[in-house]
């Protein structure tokens, strides 16, 4: 048992609390806190739980729309998708754990986000993952890629949830700090959503799932050494995931949710029993009393401090109706999971923890939450870079040779090596597999489907955070549109450096501004999200990476569009304006070796007009082949369509266009390439013109090569360049 200890400034600092914050603790408590109480403050006031640096900015994001059932603030966002159904989704980071132990770090990240979604009453139907690694040549990269991908697959595959999409980038700024962002989309009945607000004084508080061990205890260095009797070896702070137990927990929870037993439910995420019990009671405006001796533990002599701060995985906290206890217990028995009544809701407004007959903590809940520090940290805007005109960028001798280099480069190469390690087909509803613009998952029994994607172009955000923030949102919207879905809402994962540096805080503030503008213009609110700060090593931040996860819906999966060319002799058109924007382009970086210039402007009005037009064509069944234009520009987009379909194309640089390399490799936004039967092309062009959508003919499908202005590259050759990068990097690993 813990010896009452004098709390020194060192102990306070080790708990991540500033002197001012500790003063506030003393004020709230009216006395010196116990170690357990200090631990709880430290967790609740951490950046992760309190959003103390980010909250003032996050408030600027639009979160409402008629179809939003639950915006940010719960375990996951919920949107109405019609027919009495709701999509429940969120994205979360596991960056730091994944760098230390890539397999378990990534695996437990996936486990955590799935719990967030099924806590709301939804069955997870798809997972996505957005990954950022250091340079391919960095000696650690290979090990990290291999472990992270295996960990994501290891957890998701075992859960039987298909992993259908994501993104992978490589950049030196992530050498010492990779990003692992995992997203889960779930499906629920819109009138059967479960929330975390506790209610009903006297109702029992139930712990279910796996046992509590000393996993990942915050501040483990000092806390465990001080408080455990056996200090023979330094405790590892990484958590080990057990997807099998989580699968049982999922099935047991969903079975219980089909009954009427649950008053409130909350998963034990990063801050374990602490944040779950505090959040449930604070949302319900109640007190809560827990008997920590009743918590199922995996190890002997666990202290109150350790039990409250443990980050053991695969656990949930629930408030049940007393009369439903037996029924609930039977369900958890069936699934062979722990089920323990560990406490009760009270009218005291206090969190009271008992351990070994003593009171280990007694603290008011409301101020713990409401008085959490909130910082308006100073920030400075990112200096903007000059625009780069295509004519000022040297043209390559051979556009097709440049294309080959680009599609074989780290950021554009095929991700097949990654997604083939993920079961992307389980559940039998995968209508669009990884490799297209967005994944599409049909809903069981009907022809409706959800489309989902994750996107961010960190180099744009770095060069111009506001533009980059808007671009990330717009790109997800475009990717959903390109398969024929109506984009409904987003989740976000804000990965940034140290917020105490004004230039980093500037990136954050401006990226949010850009995102907010795009969300508003596109009627595309934010319903959930996550913030991960302090992503830096040796004072060098990562590229600012606000990863966006978008979800949309389509009425008829039979009309879904895919990127693959489907027939010979079709006309290839580009919709949207091509101005040859080479600043921050892949062309500039991979061919000219420059990471420079202003990123492409995002015209949200054009974005919406053109996207709505394209979606209209797809919904009308007039277009089944569509690909948005993003990294690498037009020629890369067309090459991807040709490789996917196994059908080539003959292209001609339009007369009067900008410089050819600007035209083919520029990264102007709000563009889509479509292929339509030759006889329909004229009508499509006329419609586009009528809708104010710029349209241009690029060429015609056919053959087994991509020909451009008389030169040709065989598809087989392009494909082998495109497919080679990851297998080569990863070797036999």
């Amino acid at each position, binding site marked *: 048992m813990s010896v009452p200890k004098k709390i020194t400034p060192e102990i306070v600092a080790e708990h991540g609390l500033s002197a001012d914050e500790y003063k506030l603790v003393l004020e709230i408590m009216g006395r010196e806190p116990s170690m357990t109480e200090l631990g709880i403050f430290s967790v609740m006031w951490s950046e992760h739980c309190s959003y103390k640096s980010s909250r003032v900015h996050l408030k600027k994001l639009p979160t409402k729309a008629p179809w939003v059932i639950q915006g940010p603030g719960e375990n996951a966002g919920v949107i109405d998708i019609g027919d009495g159904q709701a999509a429940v989704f969120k994205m979360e980071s596991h960056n730091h754990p994944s760098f230390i132990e890539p397999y378990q770090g990534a695996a437990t990240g996936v486990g955590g986000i799935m719990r967030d979604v099924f806590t709301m009453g939804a069955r997870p139907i798809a997972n996505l993952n957005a990954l950022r690694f250091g340079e391919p040549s960095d000696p650690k990269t290979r090990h990290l890629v291999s472990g992270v991908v295996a960990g994501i697959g290891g957890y998701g595959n075992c859960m039987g949830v298909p992993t259908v999409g994501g993104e992978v980038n490589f950049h030196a700024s992530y050498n010492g700090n990779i990003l692992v962002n995992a997203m889960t989309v779930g499906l629920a009945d819109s009138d059967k959503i479960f929330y975390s607000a506790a209610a009903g004084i006297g109702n029992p508080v139930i712990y279910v799932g796996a046992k509590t061990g000393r996993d990942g205890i915050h501040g483990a260095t000092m806390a465990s050494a001080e408080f455990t009797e056996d200090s023979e070896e330094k405790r590892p702070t990484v958590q080990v995931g*057990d997807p099998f137990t989580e699968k049982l927990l999922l099935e047991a929870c969903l079975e219980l949710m089909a009954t009427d037993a649950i008053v409130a439910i909350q998963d034990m995420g990063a801050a374990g029993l602490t944040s779950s019990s505090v959040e449930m009671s604070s949302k319900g405006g109640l007190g809560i009393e827990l008997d920590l001796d009743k918590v199922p533990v995996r190890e002997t002599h666990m202290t109150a401090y350790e039990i409250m701060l443990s980050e053991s995985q695969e656990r949930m906290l629930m408030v049940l109706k007393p009369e439903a206890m037996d029924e609930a217990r039977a369900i958890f028995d069936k699934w062979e999971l722990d089920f323990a009544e560990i406490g009760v809701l009270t009218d005291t407004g206090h969190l009271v923890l008992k351990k070994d007959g003593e009171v280990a903590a007694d603290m008011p809940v409301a101020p713990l939450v409401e008085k959490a520090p909130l910082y308006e940290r100073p920030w400075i805007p990112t200096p903007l870079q000059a625009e780069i005109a295509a004519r000022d960028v040297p043209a390559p001798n051979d556009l097709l040779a440049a294309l080959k280099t680009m599609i074989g480069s780290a950021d554009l190469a095929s991700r097949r090596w990654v997604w083939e390690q993920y079961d992307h087909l*389980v559940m039998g509803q995968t209508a669009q597999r990884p490799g297209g613009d967005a994944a599409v998952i049909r809903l069981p029994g009907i022809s409706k489907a959800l489309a989902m994607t994750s996107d961010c172009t960190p180099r744009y955000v770095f060069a111009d955070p506001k533009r980059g923030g808007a671009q990330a949102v717009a790109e997800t919207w475009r990717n959903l549109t390109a398969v024929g879905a109506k984009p409904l809402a987003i989740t976000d994962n804000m990965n940034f450096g140290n917020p105490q540096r004004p230039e980093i805080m500037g990136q954050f503030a401006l990226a949010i501004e850009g995102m907010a503008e795009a969300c508003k213009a596109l009627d595309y609110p934010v319903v959930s999200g996550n913030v991960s700060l302090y992503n830096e090593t040796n004072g060098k931040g990562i590229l600012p990476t606000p990863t966006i996860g978008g979800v949309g819906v389509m009425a008829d999966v039979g009309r879904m569009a895919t990127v693959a060319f489907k027939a010979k002799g079709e006309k290839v058109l580009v919709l949207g304006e091509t101005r040859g924007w080479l600043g921050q382009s892949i062309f500039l970086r991979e061919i000219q070796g420059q990471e420079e210039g202003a990123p492409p402007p995002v015209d949200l009005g054009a974005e919406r007009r053109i996207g709505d037009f394209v979606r209209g064509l797809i919904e009308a069944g007039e277009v089944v082949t569509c690909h948005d234009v993003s990294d690498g520009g037009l020629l890369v987009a067309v090459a991807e369509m040709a490789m996917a379909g196994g059908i080539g194309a003959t292209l001609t640089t339009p007369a009067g266009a900008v410089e050819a390399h600007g035209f083919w490799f520029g990264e102007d936004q709000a563009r889509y390439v479509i292929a339509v039967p030759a006889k329909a092309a004229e009508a499509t062009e006329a419609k586009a013109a009528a809708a104010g959508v710029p349209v241009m003919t690029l060429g015609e499908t056919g053959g087994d090569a991509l020909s451009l202005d008389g030169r040709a590259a065989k598809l087989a050759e392009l494909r082998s360049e495109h497919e080679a990068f990851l297998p080569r990097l990863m070797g036999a690993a």
Partner: protein
Amino acid sequence: MKAAIVVFPGSNREVDAKVALKQATGKDPVMVWHRDTSLPKVDLVLVPGGFSYGDYLRCGAIAANSPVLREVKARADAGMAVIGICNGFQIVTEAGLLPGVLLRNANLKFVCRNVGLRVETSGSRFTAGYKKGQVLSVPVAHHDGNYFADPRTLDELEAEDRIAFRYCGPEGRLDSIYNPNGSIRHIAGILNKKRNVLGLMPHPENAIEPMHGSTDGKALFKSMVEAVS
């Protein structure tokens, strides 16, 4: 035809299998929980894919020792049809209903993709709907599908026409580049001596409608139904 699907803690393709059986039979199969000690009277038991008991220890080993499997075994010995898909193949193999074992994939990685499958025999109630030599496109999704048995067993399987499917290229050619897991002699599925038990790694239940990109799995379920009616 009446069919049952055995569900273990950690099974995850039982619903996919249910949909496929329903499509073929017009009826919902009975779902049997692993703790059940008796099986309903059925013509077919399907052991589905997934990660029974987390695939801990060895894939399928813990499930193979469950009470319900003892019952499945007794029925199979009496001639009832049993099909084990993926984890189900591992389970029935561990239970001794089929010879050999499924080792970790040769490159140690999970693999999910469509593979070419060559039908090696149409002489079974499972494969009667295919022509010998026909090439199918069916997905695999597994970490441990690397079939292994000693040469004598393999020769026996071949001599008795008990290899049901082999991994192959689009034209039916056998080559290690088409083999997703390193399985010996490119074996993807095998039959028992009495030909009433089939184990296979690929997922025919994920190739039964145009949206799946292939409907080549349908005939397998149809054959099983026709065999009893």
